[in-house]
């Protein structure tokens, strides 16, 4: 059986995974191996999303929002505001609350949704012995 399949992963495995929210419409959690917890929110964070200031990418984007789409961090700051505005445009409160719930769900171990957005080779490093 492929341990990286779409079925629920083991809880101890998920505890060591980066739970930074990724995607814009198709939300997921990063899923790379975590190296340290974020100094502000405490979520496990991988090397890619862990900054020199000790913050995860989400907290860094919230601390220093940028208005320029040329900045790589722009999407993270823009996403939450967009969900809020589009929720009002659609008159659909569940659209924003669904996103918010999902984003905060990253702090609940065992509830991660990993969509494989990181560049893995399909088997998560497992080899047949």
């Amino acid at each position, binding site marked *: 059986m492929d341990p990286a399949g*779409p079925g629920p992963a083991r809880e101890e495995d998920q505890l060591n995974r980066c739970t930074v929210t*990724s*995607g*814009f*419409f*198709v*939300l*997921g959690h990063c899923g790379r191996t975590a190296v340290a917890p974020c100094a502000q929110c405490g979520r496990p964070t991988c090397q890619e999303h862990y900054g020199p200031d000790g913050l995860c990418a989400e907290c860094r984007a919230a601390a220093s929002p940028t208005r*320029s*789409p*040329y*900045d*790589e961090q*722009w*999407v993270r700051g*823009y*996403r939450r505001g*967009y969900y809020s*505005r*589009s929720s009002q*445009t*659609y*008159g*659909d409160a*569940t*659209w924003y609350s*669904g*996103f918010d*719930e*999902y984003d905060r*769900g990253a702090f609940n171990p065992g509830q991660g*949704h*990993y*969509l*494989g*957005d*990181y*560049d893995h080779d*399909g088997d998560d490093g497992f080899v047949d012995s």
Partner: protein
Amino acid sequence: MFWRKTKAAIGNFHPLHQGLIWQRGLSAAMRPADWAALVQSLAGHDAVVKRRKWAPPHRTHHVLVPLIRVLSQDMRPDGVLAITADLRGPDFPEKLTPQRDLAVQRPIRSIKEWYSIDPWLRIRAELRDGSVLDLSVTDRVRYRKIHKVVRGKHKTKQKTKVVQQVTATRRLRRDAPVRQPAVPPPSWLRVRVRNDRRMVIRTSAKFPKDDAQLSERILYVLTEAFRWTPPGLARPARRTS
């Protein structure tokens, strides 16, 4: 900076960046990392080139770059994002329809009407949940040239009216879990859903011209296609290669 040095600096830009400057458009299918390289090249434009004559079209900044950033977020690193952008504007012979005369009353002598149909943006993105997103933005410009005679003087004026049509189609993968949104979409948004082997959600809307707001309006049109698959329902797509 003198022209010779500016030309040399432009020659060092990303090839698609150069295409935006000289041809006012681009057409490419690349992976998100390759599009990020283009965005990075565009980010350094103003530091090197000062003259507005050689600036990329303003829709690059208002529409193209934000959409590349947003859609790249929803793609796997090996997914393909195809973009065809014709940013030359609507006034080209191949985009114009034939003129026709409208019925008039005195003192108006004639009204000639014609349109420009400018499908200036087409995007196709393979998303990481296995769905495929198609987006098109078309400017429809109505021109009216009015000729009238008032107290023996011949007067002409030309009016234009621009409508931006945004159409998005999302083809879900075959076994994708779907939940119909509890709240209907806003009245200005048209939604059609076809549930065959793969569910297809098509949304479209018309807006008055406002390029500064357009990227957000495009995202509003896209949003409906994603309300059918709320966060947490999606599962990773199986790799086919």
